[in-house]
């Protein structure tokens, strides 16, 4: 018991932070909540670093303390801080500001739980915690678009969650336990298939993978930009890591066909996300579709895990890269406008912000030596190594399409006349994107540290 608690101390710190932030909100001190959030998350991160290298399980094997769960903490907690800074500049001063912070941390906790799930119940609970906080976050402004987005998010989330629970019941019935590690046991094809498809639905929705992504653009557009940024990063990383936890345990008899299904989903997500993004004029929607595509790339990691020594580092590196560049892009969007038109001539007005935006977008494409390149480079390597060369080819063609998508933003930023005057940008925003910029630039050089730590 005691060892269990020590092993999951980072996650516990996250929980405590969420509660402490909530307490500050009760006292009507959102700023204190923000500071608490930052402190708590930094503490969790520090613990995550200190705990690095421990490989154990907690609570009789239901929660895995391993590379993925450590790195989930290391990625998600700093992201939560950055998102909180964004939120501060967006909804600061409005009612229930502190609640937003608290929900951010709760959702982060959900993702952290997902990332270490060694048990089906943790999968269900992680998706639930993640989702519930997410619904509330999306509905935070209480206006028409946000409630619509939240409603769609809720419908997709709860339906896929229910389906996932239903399907997982078959796995439980087959194995008699809820351990993921028991999957390798005797298994009939039909219950297995039902369970796997259901699982894919549940986690695929959180990761906004192709057939389950329909909530993404609407929710992102309705929600505050900071929340959209959060929703594009945290649930996704949790869900993909959880998928990785599952795919390492797939029974051999169905492994190939399951991975093939995942691969098809990945290919569809990438293609759909990128192609649809080509026609978007609202930046948030564009980024929403691009996150669908990015999840498709991300899915290469879980597919390759167990077949390639590169897969685990890949998940970590791409996770970091994705968080940094996506949050950065959203931060710029928040600062400078939610449509492409609003960004016209940004290079003239705010050269540094424009340069940062360019870096984030090129990083999303995967241009070296930026973070996105580091991630994709390893992802493609892992996919090739695992024998999914065709998927890597599709991913590559999609990278090219995504270039066209992002150039639609980059081009007017530099080559169109300015659409508005220079504006003062709040300090927290600048801090956020500067941090993201640093991470995006440094990830290529710092890859070694991450890979070494992830092994």
């Amino acid at each position: 018991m005691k060892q269990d608690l020590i092993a999951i101390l980072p996650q516990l710190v996250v929980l405590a932070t969420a509660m402490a932030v909530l307490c500050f909100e009760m006292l009507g001190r959102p700023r204190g909540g923000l500071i608490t959030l930052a402190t708590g998350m930094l503490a969790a991160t520090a613990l995550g670093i200190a705990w690095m290298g421990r490989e154990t399980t907690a609570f009789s094997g239901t929660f895995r303390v391993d590379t993925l769960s450590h790195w989930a903490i290391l990625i998600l907690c700093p992201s939560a801080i950055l998102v909180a800074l964004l939120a501060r500049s967006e909804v600061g001063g409005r009612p229930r500001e502190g609640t937003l912070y608290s929900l951010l941390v709760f959702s982060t906790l959900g993702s952290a739980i997902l990332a270490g799930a060694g048990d089906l119940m943790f999968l269900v609970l992680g998706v639930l915690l993640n989702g519930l906080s997410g619904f509330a976050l999306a509905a935070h402004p209480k206006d028409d678009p946000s409630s619509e987005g939240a409603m769609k998010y809720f419908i997709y989330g709860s339906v896929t969650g229910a389906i996932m629970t239903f399907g997982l019941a078959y796995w439980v019935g087959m194995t008699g336990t809820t351990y993921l590690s028991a999957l390798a046991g005797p298994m009939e094809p039909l219950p297995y298939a039902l369970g796997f498809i259901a699982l894919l639905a549940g986690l695929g929705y959180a990761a906004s993978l192709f057939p389950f992504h329909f909530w993404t653009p609407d929710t992102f557009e309705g929600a505050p930009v900071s929340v959209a940024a959060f929703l594009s990063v945290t649930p996704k990383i949790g869900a993909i890591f959880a998928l990785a936890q599952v795919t390492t345990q797939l029974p051999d008899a169905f492994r190939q066909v399951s991975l093939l299904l995942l691969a098809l989903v990945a290919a569809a997500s990438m293609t759909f996300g990128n192609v649809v993004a080509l026609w978007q004029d609202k930046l948030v929607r564009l980024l929403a579709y691009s996150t669908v595509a990015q999840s498709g790339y991300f899915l290469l990691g879980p597919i390759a895990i167990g077949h390639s020594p590169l897969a685990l580092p890949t998940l970590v590196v791409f996770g970091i890269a994705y968080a940094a560049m996506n949050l950065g892009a959203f931060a710029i969007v928040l600062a400078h406008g939610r449509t492409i038109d609003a960004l016209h001539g940004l290079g003239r007005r705010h050269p540094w912000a424009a340069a940062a935006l360019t870096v984030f977008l090129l990083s999303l494409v995967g241009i070296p030596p930026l973070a996105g390149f580091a991630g994709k480079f390893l992802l493609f390597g892992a996919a090739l190594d695992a024998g999914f060369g065709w998927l890597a080819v599709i991913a590559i063609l999609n990278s090219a399409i995504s270039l066209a998508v992002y150039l639609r933003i980059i081009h007017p930023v530099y080559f169109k006349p300015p659409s508005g005057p220079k504006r003062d940008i709040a300090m927290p925003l600048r801090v956020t994107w500067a941090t993201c910029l640093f991470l995006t630039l440094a990830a290529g050089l710092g890859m070694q540290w991450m890979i070494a730590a992830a092994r």
Partner: protein
Amino acid sequence: MGLYLALGIAAVLFGIGLYGVLSQTNLVMIMMGIELILGAAMLNLVAFWRFLHPDSYAIQMFVLVVMTVMALEAAVGFAIATQRFRSKGSVESEETSDLKG
């Protein structure tokens, strides 16, 4: 036999729930479909516990977890429905057309 009967009923429940979810436009009705699906999941679990793995505590626990999921999703769902109702005056998902593109 009992197992298959229970699984069959659960499957039917699931089917009804899924049909409800897909065919209804009112948020509250959709939530009812969701509850049916979760109910089917619980029935499945209980049946598996009763007929296949009578000594598994994990399955019982899972049933409790599913109940929690049900309740909390209902709670948040109603909260969203209330808010939607206040801002828009309707909880029909068909009428949600402000956001598209």
